[in-house]
């Protein structure tokens, strides 16, 4: 068979054009191309997502016992809100005390939030992120924290396009968040373990932590507010070199069923 058949010639031509596209993307046009396609497709993606949410709810409803399902959902949401509120109040109380003692400054406890719909997720299942329907046009910037239920952290904005943004979830191994154990104040760094787990590393051996302790953002570095709920300690281990403690964290938010998230635009 002749190599330069019509099919092979067409194949080589397309590959050549795509290689140019990849090269141009690589040289800095990646976000522009993606932004353009996402801008054109975001209304459809949003409609599809809302529609699928409805179908998912129907299946969920059929799979449970009528009203108990709704009641359960309401209670879970209420529980999450109360937990977030409780955690934040504890944190504010602690912060208040410290500031009163030392500086007499009023604590910050109010965020500016931008509500947004989750319209897509990683199509290849190789990363851990979602795409939301707010972007540059609404003042969204890279690094902004994303929360649900008034204070439960789910991730951080990692890419912004004209009217969409990408949020890397806290379960992504690339995610690194300064956190602390609420009761003991032990500081550490949170990294995602692919799937639904999170690991808190670099906890000093001198600090006492226990299973069930709540973990919140520490606010160190100033990239996100202090006191956002992350989850609870489910297991405690020693680091390989035995210099630090490590803890597995069970996230408070259900990251596999995100529909509406709030981006913290100002704190």
């Amino acid at each position: 068979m002749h190599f330069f058949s019509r099919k092979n010639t067409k194949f080589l031509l397309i590959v050549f054009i795509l290689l140019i596209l990849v090269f141009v993307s690589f040289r800095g046009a990646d976000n522009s191309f993606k932004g353009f396609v996402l801008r054109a497709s975001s209304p459809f993606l949003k409609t599809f997502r809302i529609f699928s949410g409805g179908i998912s709810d129907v299946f969920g409803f059929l799979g449970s016992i009528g009203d108990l399902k709704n009641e359960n959902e309401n209670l879970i949401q209420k529980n999450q809100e109360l937990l977030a509120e409780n955690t934040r109040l504890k944190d504010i109380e602690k912060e208040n005390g410290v500031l009163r003692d030392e500086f007499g400054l009023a604590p910050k406890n109010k965020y500016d939030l931008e509500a947004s719909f989750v319209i897509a997720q990683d199509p290849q299942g190789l990363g851990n992120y979602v795409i939301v329907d707010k972007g540059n046009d609404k003042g969204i910037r890279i690094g902004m924290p994303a929360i649900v239920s008034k204070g439960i952290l789910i991730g951080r904005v990692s890419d912004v396009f004209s009217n969409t943004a990408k949020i890397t979830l806290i379960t992504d191994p690339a995610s690194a968040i300064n956190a602390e154990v609420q009761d003991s104040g032990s500081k550490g760094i949170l990294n995602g373990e692919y799937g639904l787990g999170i690991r808190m590393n670099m906890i000093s051996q001198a600090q006492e932590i226990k299973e069930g302790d709540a973990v919140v953002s520490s606010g160190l570095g100033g990239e996100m507010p202090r006191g956002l709920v992350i989850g609870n300690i489910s297991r405690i281990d020693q680091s390989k070199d035995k210099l630090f403690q490590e803890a597995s964290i069970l996230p408070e938010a259900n990251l596999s069923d995100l529909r509406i998230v709030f981006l913290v635009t100002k704190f």
Partner: protein
Amino acid sequence: MKNFFLFVFCTIVVFFQLSIEGVFFSLERIPDLALALVITLVISMGFEKSAPWLVLAGLLIDAGSGTIFGTGALAYIFIGWAISYLAAVADIRSRKILFAASLGAITVFSEITKDLFFWVSFRLKDYYLHQSFAVHANFFSLDYFLKIVYTVLAVYLIYYVFRRSSRSLLQEPIKLATKKRF
């Protein structure tokens, strides 16, 4: 009419993957509907006629992926071109069980090839641009096994839907690729 049908079919399948699947599947088990579409189109229409639609599907997937824009389309074009050389598929298409088995085998190899391609793309982006997402590419996990199984099932479903809808929506069905074209 045929092109419009193909455009709508391709965009709906890709939008399903981007937007809807995450509601029903956990992230690491999401079946690759775009790959199922690529396999269906190449086997049904041949590489030459399906090439523009493979590029469209690839670019739409790229927009939602963490890879460099264009690499998904490149991966699908390579896979489509390779599949088109499998003359055996054309030979056994009339024998249902053998065809189903070969379709499954093609899907498994295509999925692994595609994920390797994406993994390399992620690594290159990470290495040169330092802006990649961390990539989970454990090819020996239960999640990955289930992802492949779901994708194989998706290929059967999409192939069936495509053949049926092309027959009923168009005046005449989209002509099957002949052995010569393979």
